[in-house]
């Protein structure tokens, strides 16, 4: 506990080695401060593990274990079972990045949920493999530049869509699954607190900006995460037993450009010699921005974040062909790709 502030537990204490402006460090600080030191934390391999346990020096003031990349949910299953076998109901929390959740860790997470373990799984979603130097994950949004989805003569960044992991998880007869982000602390706090009152598997996906990987100024992490919500790209929602039970409604929708243009990972979409919708120049960038807008609109419609209808084809926006660019509404450009 922090002597200056009895409401802070400092489970994740100062002196760790996160980059300045790290959204994951912020989110982990919020989550672990809310849960406290009377819990057991299981960490997947990733930035959070690396910057908090560098060279056998730990920033954790709660019991903490890391095994390998893919198995955090399974290790936590074992920890939880061991505690419950002794009648100990100490909370068990998993912390993982999007790689450890959407990709390599998904099977263990699915098993953990299917078996009904009493565990809160927190995914700090920074939308790529940041620890290894910004490689694409299945959480990376469409059209993003990463080192393994680079824009080039034949590419506008990541071809495929961000995996809708929340729906996958909610389809597991899941008592509680929610999204949150660092810009909306009170929302995040309410969700953590609610999650901690529910027994069984629970899931929190927290959008955590990464100044390094998203290529934005370190001072903008909170602003960027707010814009992700306000554009509709990252809806803040709660699902209980598979049903949407609450959403954070938007007073008005911000255009996705407001979000995209702050981040170098989308910069190639704006590097057009011409933004006109022609088959020449870098019209593809403009087209991808429209596609991202359509994806935001689709999410807004799906979760009813706004009452009004939008002008984009939100049905086709969620369809990406194996080869080919996607389903944004327009002009027959798909045929060229």
């Amino acid at each position, binding site marked *: 506990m922090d002597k200056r502030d009895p409401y802070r537990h400092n489970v994740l204490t100062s002196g760790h080695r996160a980059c300045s402006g790290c959204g994951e460090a912020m989110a982990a600080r919020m989550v672990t401060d809310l849960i406290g030191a009377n819990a057991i934390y299981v960490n997947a391999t990733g930035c959070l593990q690396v910057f908090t346990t560098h060279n056998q020096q730990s920033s954790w003031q709660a019991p903490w274990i890391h095994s*390998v990349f893919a198995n955090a949910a399974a290790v936590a299953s074992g920890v939880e079972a061991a505690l419950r076998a002794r009648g100990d109901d100490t909370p068990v929390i998993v912390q993982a990045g999007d790689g450890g959740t959407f990709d390599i860790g998904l099977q263990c997470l699915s098993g953990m949920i299917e078996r009904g373990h009493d565990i809160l799984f927190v995914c700090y979603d920074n939308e790529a493999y940041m620890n290894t130097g910004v490689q694409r994950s299945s959480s990376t949004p469409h059209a993003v530049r990463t080192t393994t989805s680079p824009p080039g003569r034949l590419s506008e960044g990541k071809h495929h869509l961000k995996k809708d992991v929340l729906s996958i998880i909610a389809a597991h007869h899941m008592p509680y699954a929610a999204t949150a982000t660092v810009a909306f602390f009170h929302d995040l706090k309410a969700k953590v607190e609610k999650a901690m009152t529910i027994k069984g598997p629970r899931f929190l996906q927290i959008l955590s900006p990464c100044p390094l990987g998203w290529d934005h100024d370190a001072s903008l992490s909170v602003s960027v995460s707010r814009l992700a919500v306000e554009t509709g790209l990252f809806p803040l929602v709660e699902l209980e037993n598979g049903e949407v039970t609450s959403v954070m409604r938007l007073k008005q929708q911000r255009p996705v450009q407001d979000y995209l243009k702050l981040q170098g990972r989308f910069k190639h979409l704006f590097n057009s010699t011409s933004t006109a919708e022609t088959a020449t120049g870098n019209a593809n960038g403009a087209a991808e921005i429209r596609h991202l807008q359509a994806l935001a609109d689709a999410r807004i419609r799906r979760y009813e974040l706004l009452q009004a209808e939008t002008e984009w084809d939100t049905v086709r926006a969620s369809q990406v062909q194996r080869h080919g660019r996607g389903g944004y509404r327009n002009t027959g450009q798909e045929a060229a790709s």
Partner: protein
Amino acid sequence: MKKLLEGSRAIAEAVKLCRPQIVAAYPITPQTHIIENLAQMVADGDLAAEFINAESEFAAASIVLGAVAGGSRAFTATASQGLLLMTEVLYNIAGMRLPVVMVCANRAVSAPINIFSDHQDSMTMRDAGWIQLYVESNQEAVDSIIQAYRIAEVCELPVMVCVDGFFLTHTFEPVEIPEQTQVDDFLPPFHFERTLNPSNPFTLGGGSEPDNYLEIRAQQQAALIDAVNVIQAIGADYAKLTGRAYELVDSYFAEQADTVLVVLGSTMGAVREVIDSLREQGQSVGVLRLRCFRPLPAQALVEYLSAAKRIIVIEKAFSAGAGGIVAAEVRAVLQQVGVLIPIDSYIGGLGGRDLKLTIIEDVFHQSSLAKSTADGVFLDLKQPGTATKQE
């Protein structure tokens, strides 16, 4: 009292006597009967444990890792592909010095896919940092599992009890199952110093850098080498309790023979018969079985093998591109102490091929005539010297 039990049932009975609180497993032939028996014991209320159906062997290993770190005794079992799928976690369990006990129901590895017994699965894991005990019989499997828990918990090292699939797991033999009170006297309640606990928080599995990784690895190696003494001491203790004694190696006329065969696992049963028959013919021959393969019992190997004139290693695994694994290690151990004996290296019984008595006898006769030594020769090949085409 002796009971006629299938090997898997006997193994499950032994596990039950050790009072694990968590059993996590994923089915794979020929391990399945072990975990089915345990699941039934849990379902019937005969074993006060949680049976966790893992979604893969990778998860099963991870669950027992977490269970032990969370302060409970745990058990898992697997074989073949399942063991290979666990690989990353097995190294991790050993590196974190967690006292996990598992049974490997030894089976060939793919490709070609084959469900029958050899040692290629567990031999592949020989460098993972686990203690490995290879058993000859179902009785020894029972006794070794009970000892394994105490060894693991004293050494803070994981133990893999390697039991030949089908040859042992699916074979009915009379087995003496110890009384619960005997096992309770022998095996104290589970205690793990670094249990995850909010009142004394540990960080387990943190990062390390070039300036301390090497030291941590050296500690692990030292613990494994020291485990030789622990295994012997615990074996002696167990003998007092049950009258059944197990050493690091199991000798059958090895110390007084000119030619000594070296084997692992259930092959020993057949080789004993061959030795009997050869000795009746006046041959000076014996066999040494490595019960403990990791840590390698170098001193015992020197004691039992130094006086031999010829050593014949027959093993059910090989290092692809090199040759016999056990043979190479026996050579290295003896050369280290300046003992230069001709050592033949044979590989046989792969994928469940029967190592017939006549094959073993032929090996002995060929070796006694040969001027050079056999170097990783495959026994019972249908087309000698070439790979058999798949039908």
